[in-house]
């Protein structure tokens, strides 16, 4: 174990203990670790953005290339300056134009993306389960595949119903949904509950692996340390 490894190991151990101290309650050491994380990651992100985006994509094109390219580079420069002006309270409103640009682009990409990447493929996949080829080909009993396809269809539709009508009902207590939708929404609740339960188990599982990893790392570090 080199000196650097030793120092890194000690820092790592100390930081782990500082974070874990939260078990006994919010305290100075826990906060210290969290604020340290904020500072370090912000510094890294700022450096990364400067070196891999701002300088090569915003500054360099102003000095390199054809005149047309340079003039075009002025547009993002002006918009960026307007964004930076938001830091001065008097000019906050100037920033709304570049922000509007960003919002417009993201909204457009969202429309295209969710349509082509999620809504259409997912709906097609739900329907395709009933295609004769899907039911007859491959392994498994066809009737089981039909049951499976029906289950997925019901689950998808009822979950959507609950998603929309169930939540709307809550906001307007007086406006009751028709009983059919209410009943279907309850079935949807079950399907959503199953999915959320699986996600909960997944979150715990991910967190558990993190816990084991910290313990394993400390275990190994001390193993190496005492072997020195």
């Amino acid at each position, binding site marked *: 174990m080199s000196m650097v490894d030793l120092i*890194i190991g000690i*820092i*790592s151990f100390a930081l782990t203990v500082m*974070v*874990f101290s939260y*078990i006994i309650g919010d305290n100075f050491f826990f*906060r210290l670790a969290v*604020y340290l994380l*904020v500072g*370090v*990651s*912000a*510094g*890294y992100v*700022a*450096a*990364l953005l400067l*070196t891999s*985006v701002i300088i090569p*994509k*915003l500054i360099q094109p102003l000095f390199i290339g054809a005149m047309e390219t340079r003039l075009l580079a002025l547009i*993002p420069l002006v918009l*960026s300056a307007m*964004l*930076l002006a938001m*830091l001065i309270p008097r000019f*906050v409103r*100037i*920033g*709304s*134009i570049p922000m*509007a*640009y960003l*919002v*417009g*682009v993201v*909204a*457009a*990409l969202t*429309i*295209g993306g969710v349509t082509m990447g999620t*809504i259409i493929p997912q709906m097609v996949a739900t329907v395709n389960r009933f295609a004769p080829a899907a039911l007859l080909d491959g392994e498994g009993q066809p009737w089981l595949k039909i049951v499976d396809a029906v289950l997925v269809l019901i*689950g*998808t539709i009822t*979950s*959507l119903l609950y998603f929309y009508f169930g939540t709307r009902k809550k906001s307007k207590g007086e406006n009751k949904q028709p009983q059919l939708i209410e009943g279907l929404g309850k079935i*949807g609740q079950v399907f959503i*509950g199953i*999915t*959320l339960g*699986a*996600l*909960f*188990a997944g979150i*715990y*599982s991910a*967190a558990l692996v*993190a816990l084991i*990893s*910290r313990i394993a790392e400390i275990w190994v570090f001390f193993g190496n340390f005492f072997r020195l």
Partner: protein
Amino acid sequence: MKKVLAIITAIGVGLAVVIAYFLRPLLDPMLELLLQWGIILGSVAALVGIINLLITHWHKIRQKKEHFVFSFVVLLSFALSFMGGIVLGPQDETYIRWLAALQVPIEVSLMALLALTLTYAGFQFFRMRGWTPLSLAFGISALLFLILDIGFFQALELPFVNQIIEFLEHLPLAGGRGILIGISLGALLTGLRVLFGVERHYGE
């Protein structure tokens, strides 16, 4: 005037990108240019956010607000990390090593802490009064997937049990698809509202 300009910008750019998106690859050069500007602006916006964070902490130190010591920690760690990134480069081996030595233990420990706090949540979950179909399904499903993940039943290697497990593991698909389509429809609606100028998420 600025209001109108902002709305025109959002709608104009949004429509241009949507049209170019659906007519790909016909308008790819234009789309690429608009996207490149968007990438730059996104990065500058992130920088503005970071600068704002620093200013906030600086004010806390100057005004000696409660817990200003932590603000000092933020600024100091930022300065060291930023200077390291600029001088050595963000992909420098030594820089990354030290960065990882600080970030990984804290972030992984925070994640591990979640496991410890979730134990209490797990215990308390079913103890609440008034079970609903959603909460019951959630609890039973969580319990089931926890047990399945242990791998005890799979290790039995009984074909019938394996079939049941396969069926159970398949169950979240239906609800998941409903949630996904629901999220997507919501996002689509919000996107359309921005394009029609109804939703103005840009400080108007």
